[in-house]
């Protein structure tokens, strides 16, 4: 049906993922297999809802896709239920996505919760992060494929005949904004305590002989308050930057720890073959220091590849409709 429709109608594909409290969005308009336009946006939650509504008004053939980065998902080297039973996965609690020669599963509870939370966005397609790796790589044996985003880190290691043998995902903590707000509040409280002390001093002055003294006092208080608020703003910004840096550092450390644990788990439980490379897919900036740390910790060669997650999600959505 879509094949018939696509020759006459435009189809709009919207892919998005959340980064902190922002929605990173790509809108792609396709007609007859040609991309007419492709734009990327950053929205707050309300803006994103309005954007989706406007897209649906503009074109009813609008498909919204995203990725689900919950921990309870993975790849299994077969589609058969018996294989799932072999490795101790209860198939009643999961949803299995059978691909060509392997399958991806996800916990039903997590998927339902995700759908419930995202109900307002009218999502059509939910993809696994593993697909983002799988669709992009040349599937070399003894290579660890790592996808690093600001929200999660995913790993796939392939085995002959190039089907995923090991997969793992780790959700990074992104609570910078909340911490900042708490910090801002605590700092502001401290500074305001200082102002309260000044006001207490005023109250202590009982012997006010003339109005000149009173004016002088008022001027002093105003100056003090302006200075204090200026300092608070500067300190808040500094704190924000420091917190962000700290959070990024923590995420990097968590990523390295997760990577080390995954490699250990792989060697212990999955394969005796030594890994030769780590191929990293990333959609943001990755510092050289971080790469060097991974090299030092894992003693493996690293190659980097920047990908556009949103484009891949839209590509997958297009394929999903084209099936």
């Amino acid at each position, binding site marked *: 049906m879509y094949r018939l*429709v696509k020759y006459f*109608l435009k189809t709009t594909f919207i892919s998005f993922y959340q980064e902190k409290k922002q929605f990173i969005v790509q809108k792609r308009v396709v007609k007859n297999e040609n991309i007419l336009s492709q734009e990327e946006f950053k929205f707050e939650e309300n803006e994103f809802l309005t954007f989706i509504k406007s897209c649906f*008004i503009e074109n*009813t*053939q*609008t*498909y919204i*896709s995203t990725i*689900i980065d919950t921990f309870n998902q993975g790849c299994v080297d077969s589609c058969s239920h018996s294989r799932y039973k072999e490795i101790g996965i209860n198939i009643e609690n999961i*949803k299995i*996505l*059978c*691909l060509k020669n392997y399958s991806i599963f*996800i916990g039903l509870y997590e*998927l339902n919760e995700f*759908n419930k939370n995202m109900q307002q966005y*009218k*999502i*059509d*397609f*939910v*993809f*696994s992060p593993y*697909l983002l790796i799988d669709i992009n790589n040349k599937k070399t044996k003894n290579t660890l494929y790592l996808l690093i985003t600001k929200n999660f880190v995913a790993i796939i290691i392939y085995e002959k005949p190039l089907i995923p043998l090991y997969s793992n995902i780790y959700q990074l903590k992104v609570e910078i904004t909340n911490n900042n707000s708490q910090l801002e509040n605590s700092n502001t409280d401290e500074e305001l305590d200082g102002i309260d002390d000044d006001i207490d001093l005023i109250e202590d002055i009982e012997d006010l002989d003339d109005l000149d003294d009173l004016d002088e006092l008022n001027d002093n208080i105003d100056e003090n308050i302006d200075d204090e608020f200026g300092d608070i703003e500067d300190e808040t910004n500094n704190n924000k930057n420091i917190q962000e840096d700290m959070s990024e550092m923590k995420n990097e450390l968590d990523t390295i720890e997760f990577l080390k644990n995954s490699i250990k788990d792989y060697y212990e439980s999955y394969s005796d073959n030594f890994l030769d490379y780590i191929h990293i897919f990333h959609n943001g900036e990755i510092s050289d220091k971080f790469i060097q740390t991974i090299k030092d910790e894992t003693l493996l060669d690293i190659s980097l590849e920047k990908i556009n997650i949103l484009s891949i999600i839209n590509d*997958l*959505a297009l*394929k*999903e*409709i084209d*099936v």
Partner: protein
Amino acid sequence: MYSFTKANKKPFFAEDTKLWLIFIFAISALMIFFSLFLLTKSYFYKNDISEFKVQISKNNKKITDFSNKIIFIKKEKELNTQISVNNELLKDGVKNLLDLIPDPITLTNIKISKNSLFIYGVTPSKEIYNVLLLPPLKSIFNITITNFYQMDNGWYKFESINKLKEEK
């Protein structure tokens, strides 16, 4: 299939477009229905027209027949009138003829045709016949021939042939 979820159903048209389309389709359907109604009506009218044409031609034929009949009846009437007139004339002629016959002479047979008169009868004598009947016959007919046959009692049977000359 790559997604954990299936796509929601996508309507081809927005709600307001749907309303417009429903309206347009309804109007089109009404127009089609009305045109079909008109087509059917016109089809039936055409049928009626052809039937009426056949009937008209039949009626025309009937009118022609009736006209012919009227002409025929008129001619019959004319003929009838003529025959009546002729009969009346004949009746008068016979009456006149019978008036011509004198008392002593008795007729036994008369044949009347268009241009001739045959009289058969009995006369006491030739003289009575020649004096009483022959002159009026001669005055009427161009040719008068009389033959007599004597009977046993002395009377005569006579045969009178009278003819009018035919007009050329």
